[in-house]
């Protein structure tokens, strides 16, 4: 009961935080990370577009018992006029093609749909309710 009263009080005291672009992209990246299926315990995945022309896929695995990082890597896909340039941790730059290109485009489309549905439509509805109240 105390906890419930406390959380109600916190909601009254803590003001509505206006989101920043950084926060929006961070929220998007979490949704993006869910588009590629289930993850084993201790693995964090993010997928997102920055505010320029690059997309990022990153994965970090942490040992749940020791909290030590087991591996981490970042794939950057840069959209350039002549194609989509891929690099892994800044190395091995190559224009992608075939299945990888098609899957990336599918992931981009899905990302747009899900981000729109889970963040922007939901937030807009919230703000509308807030301004109507």
């Amino acid at each position: 009961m105390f906890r419930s009263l406390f959380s109600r009080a916190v909601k009254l005291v803590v003001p509505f935080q206006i989101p920043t672009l950084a926060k929006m992209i961070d929220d998007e990246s979490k949704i993006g990370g869910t588009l590629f299926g289930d993850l084993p315990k201790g693995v964090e995945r993010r997928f997102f577009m920055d505010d320029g022309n690059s997309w990022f896929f990153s994965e970090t695995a942490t040992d749940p018992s020791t909290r030590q990082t087991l591996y981490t890597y970042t794939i950057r896909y840069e959209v350039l006029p002549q194609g989509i340039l891929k690099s892994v941790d800044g190395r091995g730059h190559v224009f992608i093609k075939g299945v990888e290109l098609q899957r990336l485009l599918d992931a981009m489309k899905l990302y747009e749909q899900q981000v729109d549905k889970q963040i922007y439509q939901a937030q807009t509805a919230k703000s509308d309710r807030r301004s109507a109240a």
Partner: protein
Amino acid sequence: MTAPLQHHPDFDPNHAQTAEADFRIRQQHEQQQQAGAMLAELSGRALQVAADASQFRIPGAELSGSALQGNESTPETMTAVTIGDRIRARRHAFLAQVGEGQ
């Protein structure tokens, strides 16, 4: 001709090592501060990832895009650009609507 520093009678190798270590730590600290300042406005893992990845750019890669603007774009690139434009427009429209925070 001046004698090399290590042959100077007042030369203290321990002190020199400490001074060098101090210098390295200070240099490292300054680099971290610069990186920290760059990231100060950014929050969250996503932008950290983007910032880390942008350290590994091909020199001139940014230019290659604009330099090749006249080149024909591939259909895949056009699709990716269109999706990107829509997402950016949605983000900025939303932030304009709510008034972007600090």
